[in-house]
């Protein structure tokens, strides 16, 4: 444990280590995001994630936003356990009929002003599960959606870009 902590004193942060085009894009997006989040929310944007029928691929990539590489909390964005604490709902999945009521209730439990991001092809209505007896289709058939982030699943970097776009939209309105 001590050796590990000692090493950590001298190690460079993983976040900016070994720059590549991808990392450069991340830093750029991150700075932009931080500026806007601070302006709009006083550096506190809280997200509640709702899986409404996803295959869990999107969840893995949303999870990655919290790791040391993407570290979304740097930008004042964090994930909350309750919709009561959330400004943004990130919704994944083709909205299974079995999850429709739960999604509606989660949306209703989120205080205004609130924004909804449909994450992934399924949530955007173009996934492989759209034409089933068991699915509703796209998230915007159930709750109003402010932003769509496509991808199967979207990469964490795309999710960050999406959050920038949402800030733009929220600032404008």
């Amino acid at each position, binding site marked *: 444990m001590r050796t590990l902590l000692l090493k950590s004193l001298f190690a460079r942060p993983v976040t900016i280590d070994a720059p590549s085009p991808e990392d450069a894009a991340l830093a750029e997006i991150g700075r932009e995001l931080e500026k806007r989040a601070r302006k709009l929310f006083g550096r506190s944007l809280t997200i509640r994630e709702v899986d409404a029928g996803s*295959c*869990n691929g999107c969840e893995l990539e949303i999870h990655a936003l919290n*790791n040391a*590489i993407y570290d979304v909390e740097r930008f004042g964005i964090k994930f909350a356990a309750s919709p009561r604490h959330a400004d943004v709902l990130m919704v994944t999945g083709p909205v299974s*009929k079995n999850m429709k*009521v*739960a999604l509606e209730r989660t949306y209703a439990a989120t205080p205004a002003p609130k924004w909804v991001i449909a994450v992934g092809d399924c949530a955007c209505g173009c996934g492989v599960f759209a034409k089933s007896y*068991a*699915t509703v289709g796209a998230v915007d058939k159930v709750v109003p959606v402010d932003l769509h982030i496509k991808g199967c699943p979207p990469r964490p970097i795309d999710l960050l870009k999406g959050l920038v776009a949402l800030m733009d939209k929220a600032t404008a309105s």
Partner: protein
Amino acid sequence: MATNGLARTLSSLRPAGDQRPWPRYAAEAALWTEIGQRLGAGEGDLLALWGEPQFVHLALRAPDLVKPCVVSIAVRNGQFPSIGRYHAPAIRLERAIHDLYGHVPGNTPDDRPWLDHGAWGLSAPLGKRKRSPLRDPAEYKFLRVAGHGMHQIPVGPVHAGIIEPGHFRFTVNGEHVARLEQRLGYVHKGIDGLLIDTDIETAARIAARVSGDSTVAYSFAFAAAVEAALDIEAPPRAQALRGVMAELERMANHFGDIGAICNDASFVIAHAHCGIFRERVLAAADQAFGHRLMMDAIVPGGIAADISPDGVRTIRTMLDDVAPHFAEIIQLYDDTPSLQDRTCTTGIVGKDLVAKWAAGGHVGRASGRDFDTRRDLTYAPYDKVKFDVPAFTAGDVDARVWVRIREVEQSMRMLRHWLKAMPSGSVRRKLPVTRKAAEGIAMTEAFRGDVFVWVRVADGRIAQAHARDASWFQWPLLEAAIEGNIVADFPLCNKSFNCSYSGHDL
């Protein structure tokens, strides 16, 4: 488990269908029931139980059978004899068959709906589909728990983290859990239905999304099942690269799980490092195969595209980079009594239960069930590579962590082997179109356990298919694992299982 009663029962059945590589037999009610009784007596493992409009199929393996096999029974008057009556692991599968096809398991011990929450507006959507009034999703009879001081904690379907939805009904006495009852099915997407009469390419994309964290394992099993039905083999280079992808997927998930388990015991440093390891693996996979999770990279006939020119070097660099750091974190796990205080003797699952449920993956191997599809029902490329299957007997959270740790080491070993001696040649072959219906079956070892896929191919299309996740036989054991533990240890137990909701709900 070693009697040859089951083999004798099976030898009296007549062959049915054109299925490869395992035979399929047709059974009448009496022998079907006898098979159920023999499974209940521990003579064999139930591998899968699924329906189609006129039939119910059961896949099983037993020590005295040369190969696993499938037994089918024709549904008469909308009924088939319940296997769950004799062999509890079949109960949830029969409830699912009833909800999807309308076939009634005769004399079932549990006739509550499972996947059907009353939200489809239909009953038996894949059988004699009928309009059905919507039901209140809260109308569900949980098992009754009575006793002094008992109270309930309902959790979900929307959980507190970035995880999949499901409902857990805890009945607790003070801090101790007297019973956990799960209610699943929230992410049911109708996958078996979507696979009916579908072109192979589309079906492969659907199969790749049964459970996103196991996308490689599902694509692999689906491709292998289609290839078995068509009686072809993927080129050697594709086989080796499938192994590379499968082991990268296993490593990424195990890193994620080891970290998340430590995180649930508030040991954040391990979580942070494991998160970085996971990212390194995903970045290498992206570089080598063009997708972080390698979704749709395995296709029937081979793989979608060859590894990128710098792919081999990228993966090798990643292994060299991660291996020593991982060893340090494992040392730290091993040297931290406060962490082990949470993981050791927590959430114990007995050897008898994992044997009865034929639980795969870390759940089985942490409780003494020494089974791994890669070794025991071996398939290419695992038939030509050396690896150990780590197994433990403590059956607690700690043992499930150690299974993962040792498996990561074995994955690294296999990856290095394949990267050094990669066969050359093409990576994909064209699929022949056969008029006659043929069936194929395949099992692969996903990071959480065995994935089972059955397909019927006719005229170059998928006529019918079924996928069964390892979670079907692990979720019920989580109910057993938490019994008598404190509520605060549930996240640890749950994470140490890490069952798939999507893979189970289909």
